[in-house]
């Protein structure tokens, strides 16, 4: 029978010789398992005289636990080395490009429309939709345009026949809303806004297009004044262009408002005209059965494209509807 001592010596030798955790694991099973060298010794315990058995068993068990401790220590050492080696081996070139995600963005006009909507909804305006292919009557007649008046010259329109045209201004929604008031489907006071596409017979260049977008907002209540218009426009302009922006009114003419103004915002040391505004003409209110002594209203409108042109410095209007991907993917997600 081999002596415990010599087995221990062989085992220590094997542990020291192990150069990896897996090698060490086979050493461990060679010496520690039931079928290992010490286990074999223990199995021969029956051949000993009964009085020697307890001592022998104790010696083998001591040897087992001694070995187990030594293996564990060695294992810890080797595991550390192996982890270090693994980390060394797994070094990545972090400058290699990452797997690209497709650059999917909103269109810049959508980004602007969102900002405009957010600002006006916050100011209590309800957004509605109106047709782009509109009746002549809503686009002009309902807006107090005298028949065949030069006031329409600035808004030469595309016709499709039968008194239908492509709306030249989103203000065309007003008559439809006032009809709803007249039918009792809406009640006063109201604050309505619309964003949409408009069309004018105009040649295309960097600042003009036959197709563009507008936002229009109007409010009707008792005692609405030019001061309320200025207050609302100032709030709106500050939400869009920053808290320092001021609003200036200059007299202008639009048949559907009286007084009519164009409004400008303070911008880079000067004034920048942004759109038209005024008090809703009493002729319009009265036409829809609204008492113009009791109720008054304001309306304002402006071009949407103008806003990203200012905000992002886009210098050519045509870019918006051309959809060159190199242009569209420039805009950050806002």
């Amino acid at each position, binding site marked *: 029978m081999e002596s415990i001592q010599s087995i221990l010596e062989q085992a220590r030798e094997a542990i020291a010789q192990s150069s990896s955790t897996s090698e060490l694991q086979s050493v461990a099973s060679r010496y520690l398992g039931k079928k290992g060298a010490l286990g074999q010794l223990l199995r021969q315990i029956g051949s000993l005289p009964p009085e020697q058995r307890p001592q022998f068993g104790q010696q083998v068990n001591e040897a087992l636990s001694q070995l187990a401790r030594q293996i564990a220590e060695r294992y810890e050492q080797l595991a550390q080395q192996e982890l270090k080696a693994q980390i060394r081996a797994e070094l990545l070139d972090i400058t290699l490009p990452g797997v690209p995600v497709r650059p*999917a963005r909103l269109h810049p006009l959508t980004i602007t429309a969102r900002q405009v909507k957010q600002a006006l909804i916050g100011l209590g305006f309800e957004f509605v939709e109106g047709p782009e292919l509109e009746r002549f009557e809503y686009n002009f007649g309902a807006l107090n345009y005298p028949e065949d008046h030069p006031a329409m010259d600035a808004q030469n329109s595309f016709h499709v026949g039968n008194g239908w045209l492509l709306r030249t201004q989103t203000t065309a929604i007003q008559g439809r809303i006032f009809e709803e008031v007249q039918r009792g489907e809406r009640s006063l006071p109201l604050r309505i806004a619309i964003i949409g596409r408009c*069309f004018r017979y105009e040649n295309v260049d960097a600042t003009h297009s036959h197709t563009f977008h507008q936002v229009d907002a109007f409010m009707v209540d008792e005692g609405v004044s030019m001061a309320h218009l200025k207050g609302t426009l100032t709030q709106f302009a500050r939400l869009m262009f920053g808290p320092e922006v001021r609003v200036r009114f200059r007299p202008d003419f639009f048949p559907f408002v009286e007084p009519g103004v164009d409004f400008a915002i303070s911008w880079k040391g000067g004034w920048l005209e942004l759109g038209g505004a005024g008090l809703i003409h009493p002729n319009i209110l009265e036409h829809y059965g609204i008492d113009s002594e009791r109720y008054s209203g304001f309306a304002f409108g402006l071009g949407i494209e103008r806003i990203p042109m200012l905000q992002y410095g886009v210098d050519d209007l045509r870019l918006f509807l051309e959809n060159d991907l190199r242009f569209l993917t420039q805009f950050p997600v806002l």
Partner: protein
Amino acid sequence: MRVPIEWLWDFVQFDLSISDLAERLTMAGLEVEEILETPHGTVLSLYITPNRGDCLSIFGIAREVYALLGESCQPTPLFWRLSEWILNPPPVEPGETAQYARVEVLDPDLCPRYGARVIRGVVIAPSPASVQNRLLAAGMRPISNIVDATNYVMLELGQPLHAFDLDTLSQQTIRVRRARAGECITTLDERTHRLQPDMLMICDAERPVAVAGIMGGAETEVTEKTQNILMESAHFHPRSIRRTSRTLDLSTESSYRFERFVDPNLVVVAQLRVCELIEEWTGVAPVLGMLDVYPQPLPMRMLGVRLRRAEQMLGFPIAPQEAQRVLERLQLQPKLAEEGFEVRVPLFRPDLAREIDLIEELGRILGYERIPESPPTGTTTQGKDSPEGAFAERLRTILLGAGLQEVVSHTLEPENPFQTAGSGVSEQMYQPVALYNPMSEELSFLRFSLLSSLIRTADYNRRRGIRDLHLFEIGRVFALGEQSYYEWLHLGLLMTGQTHEPHWSEKPKPVDFYHLKGVVEYLMRALGMAPRFVPMNGHDPRFHPGRCAYVHDKDDQRLGVLGELHPSLAQTYEFRQRVYLAEFSLNALLHRAVHTVVYRALPIFPPVLRDIAVIVPQAVPVGQLLDTLKEVGGDWLESIQLFDRYVGEHIPEGWHSLAFSLVFRSRERTLTDEEVNERVDQMFHALETRHGALARR
């Protein structure tokens, strides 16, 4: 409108610098677009809004300057003399003029007033140099003393005049009447116009000699040989002038003014002024008297303005004295009334029709900088987006998540092959909508489908070397039905090129039908819908006939279409890669989408997983196999994935091998292996008996 400063000084003297004056005018609604330094002096270039025809003259601008500057400017005696004439024109008598000419107004509805004077024995010569200089500064070409005098007075007072060679007028007669069918006239610009019966003409005893208020005729114009003049000064109906001018495509300084209404009192004032100037320049006085046909003189309008109301509308306080001063300086002759003032509106201000117009005048002259910024008071209203707008935002969120780029493209488009069907949402017959007055053929139709827009966008980018496109657009499309026009909000999708950018770790794959279908499935599920893909029975020439489908919801409502661009169209547009397209009715999606969420408790019992494989003829649609599996799998079948499809070795020609991954789970208890195995056997059996599949166990 060009205003030479030196000419303006004839009427008002002021100390203001030119740029300060320009600023004041601009802020009062007379926008100075430019201050021009010309060889003929400094000129203001003004934009006059279409309601202010009274400002289309030097004198009209002078009136505004006086109203604005008040005490700080000095009107001249000429200013006061002309103002007085305009407000209270001196009475006129035919005098001796009736011996030399006759005037008959046959259509007074279109010509409410016609005045004529005669000047005999003039010698045609150039006008004085100072006059020529002013005309040049104002942008007109000097011609001769008589013609220049008419232009000079038009620029000065805003009343267009016309000088006829009296001896060329048949029977020295002026007849103002509508044109007769077949009549023609050759105008001063040597264009010959065929006239229509609603056009007002100035005629002699025989023929038209001028297009009323627009341009004179060539045959009766003043020439070097002219000795006797008939000077016309008239008031024409604005709309009639505008229509004729548009129909004949003939727009002049004269028609521009008449369209915007010219004060009928100027008929007389301008005659007095032009003859005064001609006498001054040539020494020839007019024949005494003046013919003036004015059967129904226009009355002056009386109008009241309440001060309290003005303050309420403008939002700032106004002292009665300052209101009175403003109204006086606007020549409105205010009288104190109970709550404010009553004014007499001069005929040159037809834009002042109601109280609110006077309130605007008060605000405009006092200055809008006095308006404070007040937030609206009273009942607050609930701000919100429109249902369509809010839904479009929902779609955008989903589609950005699917990696699609938003585009926004033109409504106007050329005739194109995509005008053959709508989104397939309706079976009705529709026509594309054509413009009656397109700018060009390229812009002659309203888009009928978003697919044409998306294809144009793909084409535009392809020409710039961008071939991988994953796009969506939300926009309106238009159609003409039997009764009326239709306008719908649509959603369009386009995918073409590679699935992703080239990368060292992963080879990009070309986009195929199933990539687009995957996006559509993702979209539908995100909207809470279970999509069904239904073969197209009809023939849609936009799509590859073997690679297109209708998209229905679970109740078989049609929502849209998807498919591969028809190979012949791909050729037309020179696409060398395959293009996949889809289009949906946004309203159909909006109405079928789920708008509320009901929470379902998470499962508490463990799942049982099984993978099964069959071989089956390729002609059997996989959708049918899936339907069978779902049906037989019943409530226990929680999910089913087709995770492998194989064609090739060991599989008969025309067959394929399909492998499904099944998850079984009960909401009541833990399922046993035995009962799941039994269920799987039933599923295999159903695939074998119903679809001729063979199990691969």
